[in-house]
């Protein structure tokens, strides 16, 4: 248990100054601008926005600068800032069929209506250093096709859905407003909306590890990447004062539709089942991991024994939050003097009593012998 401590103001003030000094690094090297981070560290910014649960590229860039690139500390800054702002309402549900596609691939279907679009990906790079980035090399001329992509690309599961071979994702009756774990604490068993919200905010590394465990057989649902798409989607809102819907702008998002094998049960015929991943920015690893874990957490819905960690929702959802996890682990650094003193005294007392008992027994034995 942590007991509050007092004092240390001068040392704490000095550590703030030292932190600023260390953060700046060698003053002979030009200082980073927030705009440079925003434009050139987009994937790090996506992670900070996802785990900070707040879309704002400039703030995420500032958070990365302030935290010396520590993604978890940066996400913490985003969460803290969010709590200072009023909430104006909820958007209309984002429609990913309206996405201005920058990348869209399927590992399940080769010939997709609209085509496979690689976009900006590291997938087909050789993972060799490009030392030209250490000098001021001119950026390459980017090729442009003679025509743009189709403005409307169907989502892959919707294509397969026409044959009835895949689990249908339809809104429940009345299309209710979702639960919000930032307003109401998590409750178990968790409904799908709560699970997806918590996974959206979840730590990429933790979800990646869980998704990997599923693939290796700890909850085996062999997943196919049905579709991964990345691009800008419009955000629409209906302000009460206006009474009609307006667009607030566009945000860059990644969506992953995982398709999984399912043998069927007495109630459900054999079909493909689905896992869903959705994340801010270009963040495929996060969206894919989320989709695999989302499917694993549907174990109950399909009558599967939830025997593995990735299928156990309390384990997954309570432990996937970056901020809560790092807060609890790292609070161990704060002074626990009173607590430790108590433990120390208890231990001394136990040992003293043990020693006294031993002496008493020895004395008794000596008495019996004499």
């Amino acid at each position, binding site marked *: 248990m942590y007991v509050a401590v007092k004092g240390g103001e001068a040392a704490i003030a000095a550590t703030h100054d030292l932190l600023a000094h260390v953060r700046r690094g060698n003053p002979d090297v030009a200082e980073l601008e927030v705009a440079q981070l925003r434009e050139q560290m987009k994937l790090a910014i996506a992670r900070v*926005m996802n785990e900070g649960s*707040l*879309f*704002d590229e*400039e*703030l995420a860039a500032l958070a990365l600068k302030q935290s010396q690139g520590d993604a978890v500390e940066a996400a913490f800054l985003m969460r803290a800032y*969010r709590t200072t*702002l*009023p*909430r*104006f309402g*909820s*958007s209309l*549900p*984002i429609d*990913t069929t309206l996405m*201005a*596609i920058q*990348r869209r691939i399927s590992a399940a279907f080769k010939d997709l209506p609209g*085509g*496979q*679009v690689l976009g*900006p990906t590291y997938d087909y790079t050789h993972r060799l250093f490009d030392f030209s980035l250490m000098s001021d090399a001119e950026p390459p001329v*980017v*090729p*442009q*096709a*003679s*025509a*743009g*992509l189709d403005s409307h690309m169907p*989502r892959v*599961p*919707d294509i397969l859905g026409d044959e009835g071979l895949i689990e249908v*994702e339809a*809104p*429940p009756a009345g299309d209710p407003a*979702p639960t919000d*774990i*930032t307003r109401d604490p998590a409750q178990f068993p968790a409904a*799908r*909306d709560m699970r997806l*919200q918590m996974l*959206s*905010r979840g730590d990429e590394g933790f979800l990646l590890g869980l998704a990997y465990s599923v693939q290796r057989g700890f909850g085996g649902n062999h997943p196919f990447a049905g579709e991964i798409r990345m691009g800008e989607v419009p*955000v629409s809102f209906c302000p009460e*004062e*206006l009474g*009609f*819907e*307006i*667009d*607030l*702008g*566009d*945000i860059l998002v990644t969506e992953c*539709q995982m398709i999984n094998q399912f043998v069927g049960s007495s109630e459900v015929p054999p079909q493909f089942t*689905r896992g*869903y991943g959705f994340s*801010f920015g270009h963040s495929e690893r996060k969206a894919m991991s989320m989709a695999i874990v989302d499917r694993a957490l549907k174990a109950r819905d399909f009558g599967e024994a939830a025997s593995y960690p990735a299928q156990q929702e309390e384990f997954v959802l309570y432990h996937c939050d970056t901020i809560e996890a790092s807060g609890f682990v790292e609070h161990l650094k704060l002074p626990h003097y009173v607590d430790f003193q108590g433990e120390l005294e208890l231990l001394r007392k136990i040992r003293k009593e043990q020693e006294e008992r031993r002496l008493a027994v020895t004395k008794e034995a000596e008495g019996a012998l004499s």
Partner: protein
Amino acid sequence: MNRVNENRDRAGWMAVLARATHSEIVAAVEKIDMPAIDIVKPAEVGTIMLEGRAGGSGQRFNAGEATMTRCVVRVGECLGFSYALGRDKKKAVLCAALDGLLQNPMRRNEIFEHVIAPIAAAYAKRQEEASRRAAATKVDFFTMVRGDG
């Protein structure tokens, strides 16, 4: 013009203004005669909860928030509103003023021609170029037939 068409037109120009960059709005306002405005509700930064749907088509869920800014001004007889993602308060005030001016039938055509149309065209051009760059990475993979051995 009936109310439905009026709202549709207004949502159209508000969408253009919301997507415009800061410098586009500042430059556009310099090109027109902007009357005095009264601030009704000062530009305010807040958040909007972004909803998604499971599988893209199913149950609604909260995907996380985004920052947004809103502002209300009075321009002559009209109340102008602005709502946009981000935290740009100056842009919010100017966009609200433009929304007010656009509601005035005497000014609408002029503002449309000098502000809305060029900003919309620049946006469409950026989108088209991004789409063409993506289209250059369209791929056709060949599936290799496995041998019997």
